[in-house]
């Protein structure tokens, strides 16, 4: 806050005076107020002065000081308003079906609007609580291959020492999963990260205990969150010791308040970065090839971030080591502002949750759709009903009502309905919140809605809806000529019919879009599931052996597991489908090649191919008979053959692969048929597998035969705990793990399906209302038709004919849109279906059937009435 601003009286109080005080008195009184304020600032301080200013402002609001006309006007509208309200209530009571249809439609619309609004508010509020927020940037690395959210070791340090613009840097890095906390003979996993000492200088997290500036300064110091503290300690935790990974003794040097949910940084425990330096060979000045630290920069005030970004882009080129340059990849440094980290589309966030711009946009779009459709329902029904109200309007006009007064009346009515709907809508939100949470993977509670901006937003929403849906009917209704209105011409239902019809088209256009997208996504998911993956994903059990000691016991475990009945094959490895190995390992086809190939390095043993059911298409697998190949042999996949530039898979055998990092390097002994190591969203990457699982193995994959699986798992666990009594036994199935990669798509399909159904319901009740209205106004016609011999079916057909065309038209209009955006979406997948025309048939079938059922239901009711009754109607 600058000094000048601080001396000003509170702005809102000033506005209050301006708005309500009599204009003749304003100059004098506000002058007085300001003078008193200035004195008070000098004598009592700014805070107290502002408070007194507020108090005085409010006490100035006395009848004889206020704008004189204000009250008179208000009194007048108040009477009219109560009158309007009364009439509105009577109308609602008179036609409960109509009211119910409006209410249901609008409340669903408002419920979706409210939820979407909260979701968007929350997503946009990420990382808004850091004091230096606008100066914090995440340092990233870009290359032609894409983006990395992490950087080479020396970069951030170099930037700090080279550029005066950098105030502080933070080094962070995820702690190894083995960093479990020992407590009472048990081990507990926590989300832990290393962070360098300026972490709390850059980010604003409140420390309950400890000193922010020293908490992470020095080795073996940790900062934990309040809830983690409460788990292990009673009372103050500062200075106490946490034992981690059996042998490490960490001192608690700080306790922070639990991290807000809207932070892209989430952790239970921060370990000082100096600890990491002690435990590893990390260096601030070397290690240009190690892209595994996450850095944040705090720039000095007034630094132009964009200019600075272009300044540092060439850091790798200018300062990088020879080894880095030998990789022949054009790395560049880049920056992402703090507030964009969570939602960044290309650069993932490894420090906590990731948001998605697309998710927010989809939600926004769906909310707008739902609200629009609900409004359309209201417009449609009420313009249609204008016929029934023409007499009322006629009388009012004759009695001297002006057009604007009538408009006011109808707007009051729509406001009333909307307010009711808002209440019902919030009840709907309450009921559907758990479901919604599951859908978007959040944990909102009703209290989340308890915020000022939400209430403002929802008020605006209610007003907008009331206006949108009320204005046009009000206009139409109030425009009637009094004479015609009094005559009550029934055949006026044709007036405005085109509009009503186009609104129906509009509704079913949206409904068709939703239905079509649902089918499209479902199709792509089914396609991905049905593809031949190149390996057998079922009947494989995986044990997580990441934390096992690295010694011969690993081989013992493998051997004893192989003895268990039903276990067909077993392999020890660092990578499995859906569990990638070392990605981004640069390799070359021989010493003389200068074309870098980005390979995935997989450590396997001789049973890997058999266990996963891979196919060797050239050369041979590792085998015990040829132990010599274990040291230098490599299996590669077909994609790797191509990437290396070898003519054929046969030609690849015996070729040499080298790499600066040493993995992968060796001689190709076999080529495996391409298989999908990741979900079908992703390309198949060049893979190179070496017989090194004794060094790098993390998992045991077990192919089992059908039989008693639970007994087999019991046996496996027994074997495991005999060997490793202190190691937790965790397992999962390969097919489940692999299918979990489609979780996002599944979720999208689920979301779309839910909203498609909701939108169909809204359009459906709109249609129902309109048909109901038409049926009533054509009661006599139907009576005559029936006496002349029309069957019920023919009468239903009479109505349906008009509407089915509209529904069809809505569908047809949706097709080009879906073709365009659908292909766009499908292009995100490396392996995708084409848009199957059957999708359109299905969508038409669904929407037409729904609308037919609705029309039939409603018309049947009218059509089966005894014609005598119908003819006596009115």
């Amino acid at each position: 806050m600058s000094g000048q601003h601080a001396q000003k009286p509170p702005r809102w109080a000033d506005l209050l005076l301006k708005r309500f005080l009599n204009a003749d008195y304003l100059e004098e009184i506000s002058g007085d107020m300001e003078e008193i304020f200035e004195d008070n600032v000098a004598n009592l301080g700014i805070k107290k002065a502002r408070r007194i200013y507020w108090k005085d402002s409010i006490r100035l609001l006395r009848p004889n000081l206020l704008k004189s006309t204000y009250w008179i006007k208000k009194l007048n509208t108040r009477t009219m308003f109560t009158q309007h309200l009364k009439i509105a209530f009577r109308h609602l009571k008179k036609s409960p079906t109509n009211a119910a249809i409006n209410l249901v439609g609008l409340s669903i619309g408002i419920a979706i609007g409210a939820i979407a609004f909260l979701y968007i508010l929350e997503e946009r509020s990420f990382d808004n609580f850091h004091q230096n927020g606008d100066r914090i940037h995440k340092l990233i690395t870009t290359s032609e291959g894409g983006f990395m959210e992490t950087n080479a070791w020396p970069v951030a340090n170099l930037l700090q020492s080279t550029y005066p613009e950098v105030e502080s840097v933070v080094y962070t890095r995820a702690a190894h999963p083995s960093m479990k906390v020992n407590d009472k003979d048990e081990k507990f996993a926590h989300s832990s990260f290393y962070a360098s000492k300026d972490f709390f200088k850059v980010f604003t997290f409140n420390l309950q205990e400890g000193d922010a500036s020293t908490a992470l300064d020095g080795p073996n110091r940790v900062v934990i969150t309040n809830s983690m503290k409460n788990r292990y300690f009673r009372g103050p935790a500062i200075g106490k010791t946490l034992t981690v990974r059996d042998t490490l003794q960490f001192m608690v040097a700080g306790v922070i308040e639990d991290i807000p949910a809207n932070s892209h940084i989430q952790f239970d425990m921060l370990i000082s970065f100096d600890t990491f330096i002690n435990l590893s060979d990390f260096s601030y000045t070397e290690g240009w090839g190690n892209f595994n630290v996450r850095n944040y920069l705090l720039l000095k005030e007034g630094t132009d971030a964009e200019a600075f970004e272009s300044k540092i882009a060439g850091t790798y080129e200018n300062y990088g080591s020879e080894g880095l340059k030998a990789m022949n990849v054009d790395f560049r440094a880049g920056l992402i502002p703090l507030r964009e980290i969570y939602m960044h589309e290309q650069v993932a966030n490894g420090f906590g949750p990731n948001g998605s711009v697309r998710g927010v946009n989809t939600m926004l779009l769906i909310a707008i759709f739902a609200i629009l459709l609900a409004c359309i329902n209201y417009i449609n029904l009420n313009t249609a009903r204008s016929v029934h109200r023409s007499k009322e309007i006629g009388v009012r006009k004759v009695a001297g009502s002006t057009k604007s007064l009538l408009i006011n009346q109808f707007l009051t009515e729509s406001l009333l309905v909307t307010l009711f709907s808002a209440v019902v809508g919030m009840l709907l939100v309450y009921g559907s919140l758990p479901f919604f949470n599951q859908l978007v993977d959040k944990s909102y509670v009703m209290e989340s809605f308890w915020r000022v901006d939400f209430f403002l937003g929802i008020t605006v929403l209610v007003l907008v809806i009331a206006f949108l849906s009320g204005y046009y009917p009000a206009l139409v209704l109030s425009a009637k000529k009094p004479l015609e209105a009094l005559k009550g011409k029934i055949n006026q239902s044709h007036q405005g019919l085109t509009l009503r019809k186009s609104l129906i088209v509009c509704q079913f256009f949206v409904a068709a879009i939703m239905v079509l997208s649902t089918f499209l996504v479902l199709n792509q998911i089914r396609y991905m599931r049905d593809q031949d993956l190149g390996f057998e994903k079922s009947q494989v059990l995986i044990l997580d052996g990441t934390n096992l000691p690295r010694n011969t016991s690993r081989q013992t475990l493998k051997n004893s597991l192989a003895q268990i009945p039903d276990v067909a094959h077993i392999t020890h490895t660092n990578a499995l489908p859906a569990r990638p190995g070392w990605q981004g390992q640069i390799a070359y086809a021989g010493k003389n090649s200068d074309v870098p190939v980005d390979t995935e390095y997989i450590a396997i043993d001789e049973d890997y191919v058999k266990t996963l059911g891979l196919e060797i298409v050239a050369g041979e697998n590792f085998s015990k008979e040829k132990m010599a190949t274990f040291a230098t042999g490599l299996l590669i996949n077909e994609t790797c053959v191509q990437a290396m530039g070898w003519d054929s898979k046969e030609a690849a055998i015996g070729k040499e692969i080298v790499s600066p990092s040493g993995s992968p390097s060796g001689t190709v002994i076999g080529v495996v048929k391409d298989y999908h190591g990741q979900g079908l969203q992703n390309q198949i990457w060049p893979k190179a597998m070496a017989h090194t699982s004794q060094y790098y193995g993390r998992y045991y994959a077990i192919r089992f035969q059908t039989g008693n699986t639970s007994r087999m798992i019991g046996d496996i666990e027994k074997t495991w705990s005999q060997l490793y009594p202190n190691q937790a036994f965790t397992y999962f199935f390969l097919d489940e793990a692999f299918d979990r990669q489609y979780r996002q798509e599944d979720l999208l399909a689920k979301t779309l399906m839910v909203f498609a159904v909701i939108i169909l319901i809204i359009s459906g009740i709109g249609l129902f209302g309109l048909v109901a209205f038409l049926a009533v106004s054509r009661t006599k016609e139907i009576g005559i038709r029936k006496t002349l011999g029309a069957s019920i079916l023919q009468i239903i057909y009479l109505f349906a004919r008009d509407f089915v065309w509209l529904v069809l038209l809505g569908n047809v209009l949706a097709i080009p849109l879906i073709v365009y955006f659908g292909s766009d979406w499908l292009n995100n997948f490396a392996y995708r279906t084409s848009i199957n025309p059957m999708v359109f048939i299905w969508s038409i079938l669904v929407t037409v059937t729904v609308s037919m059922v609705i029309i039939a239901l409603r018309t049947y009711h009218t059509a089966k009435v005894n014609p005598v009754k119908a003819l006596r109607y009115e």
Partner: protein
Amino acid sequence: MKKTKLGEFEEFVLLTVVLLQEKAYGVEIKRELEERLSQQLSVGSIQSALKRMEEKGFLQSAFGEATQKRGGKRKRIYTATPHAHQVLQETREIRESMWRGIVLKQIKNQTI
């Protein structure tokens, strides 16, 4: 006395206006009264009394000159009308005539 009566608070304000003469504007009146009554007053109560009395014809007012202070806004200087002087005089006389016949009891310190 006619219906244009002077309330107790109004009378205080009016007296202050007379007392302050050409210095009589909102803030100064407030300051003076606060001192004399030894109690905090809100701007609203003073202003409302001033406006009421102006309407009843006790006060006249005119804008003073603009100053640097108060954000350049002009002061409004109040002066009592002859009518006000007359009413004040009447009130005073009535009171004094009554006081002449009154001897107040000496209030003792009660210990309860």
